[in-house]
């Protein structure tokens, strides 16, 4: 019934539209939300969308995870680079997120504000 999903074109369309919709959610949040944590979440969602898009775009239906034996034919494996890159990117994003949250906590403690639009200590 769902065989038509197995064609790379359909998969590609789904990946693009899906990840971009996710990106839209994040972007919408970034542009409209005021709460610092929500902003961070929006950014995280956008990042995730990009990762999804990357992995999805380079995903081959007939290939397997790249764990090989000595003399394997390399063409049957999926590209390992997206995995490695996304692994790195995720950790970086996580680190930035953690730092941002700690900033936000500290800022809230000092000024009691969580709304980025009211962050105006320095209007000169």
């Amino acid at each position: 019934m769902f065989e038509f999903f197995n064609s790379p074109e359909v998969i590609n369309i789904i990946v693009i539209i899906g990840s971009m919709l996710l990106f839209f959610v994040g972007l919408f949040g970034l542009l409209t939300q005021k709460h610092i944590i929500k902003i961070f979440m929006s950014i995280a969602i956008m990042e995730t969308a990009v990762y999804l898009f990357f992995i999805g775009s380079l995903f081959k239906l007939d290939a397997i995870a790249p764990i090989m034996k000595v003399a394997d034919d390399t063409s049957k494996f999926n590209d390992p680079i997206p995995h490695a890159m996304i692994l790195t990117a995720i950790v970086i994003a996580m680190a930035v997120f953690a730092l941002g949250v700690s900033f936000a906590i500290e800022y809230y403690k000092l000024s009691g504000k969580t709304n980025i639009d009211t962050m105006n200590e320095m209007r000169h």
Partner: protein
Amino acid sequence: MSSVLFVALPLLFGFSTPILGYFGKNAVAYVSTLMQLFLLYLGFDLLLNEGFSIELISIAPPLGISFVVTKVSLLFVLLFTSVMTLFSLYYLSYRSEKPYRDESKFFILINMLLAASIGLVLSSDIFNIYVFFEIAGISAYILSAYEKSSSALEAGIKYLITGAVASIFLIFAIVLIYIYIGSLNLGIIAQHFELLPFQIKLLISILLLIGFGFKVEIFPLNFWVSDVYQGSSTLVNALFSAIVVKAYLFVFFHLLYLFLPHGEFSLFLIYLGAFSMLAAEVAGLRQSHLKRLFAYSSLGQVALVFTAFALQNTQAIQAALFIVLAHSVAKMGIFFALALIEKEHESMESETLKSLNSPFLRVILLISMLSLLGIPLFAGFVGKLLVLKSLALEGMLPIIMMIILASLIEAVYYFKLAGYMFTSDKRRDVLKVTWAHKTILAFLSLLLLIIGMAPFLLSEYLFEASKLMLGGVS
């Protein structure tokens, strides 16, 4: 000697600070400074010996990551290293009176910043550039919020959010590049970039522009800058304007020259740069807070460099390099001096300068400001002249006029400050400046004068560097 040391040593230093901490309070500071001096030596060593090398990491490019050392990247590396060394030397004397809390962390951060900036300049792998982009960014966020006051934190949060958004666009661009070209090596990408479908090429270029645009402080992506400068501590601002922006600028245009060697976006970027400069200077006109004021001036100068780079010819790039040098030196002088003033007066309103009682600091500030303005005899003039000259050769009169108008507005607020410094007679007690600070500040001012009066000492090197940069060796 290997150029990887520029990155490896600061990282090693950073990771090993807890060990160093056992050797006493000052060990971290001194080791850090010594290491920077060593890196400076390393830079000159590379400059004198080869001036060009490709440093492999793990495996050979194009599959692996590599560092490319050319005259132009070496120029930036040397600039960053010297700025950082001077900064450390300055801070060594500064800290005895008003050290940052948790000093060893501060040293880690500045060294990480240095490593990342150098990595940005040297790396020839676009994902590696992204990693360094993030390291530089994250160290800068923390440095900006380091004082933990609510304004510092506000600056940090704004910086962090913009940085994170910028990195999304950058990683999006990188993802697209890998999907459509299949490589992360800059050289390979450059070869295939032309052949991409037009829309994809455009999308990647625009995503890169937006991603880097936040970092190179270009209109309309630079609204965060003034807040960050104002909130951050004064000394750190010197690093922001002398190192961080410069590294991003270099990378952005390095990528631009590689990917779009025929200058498809050139005209648009030139207008964008000139307009950014104008907008920044106009915004600066009504400022009364010194740090914010100089933030706008940084924006203006960076936009000028941006315009020059965007012209995409050797003459203009040479000019841009001149401005980069002059601006870094001048801004260091200004923020170093402001740090001393802030320590004494505990205020950064421009009225503070009225009661500044230190002829030495006044002269230093003045020389730096005149250089920023591009007054003859100072380093800034050479750069500005060369930029405008190249613009004139291209027949871009409107751009010239925008830049000149911006300079005029800049002059108005600089001379307002000069007026505060030199006409008032209500002075405080004499502000004592230690000899170490005096030496460094005098050295910076002297440098501005030397470059300004004898630009031919540098011009040849810079010209070759600009040729290399335009040629896009990677």
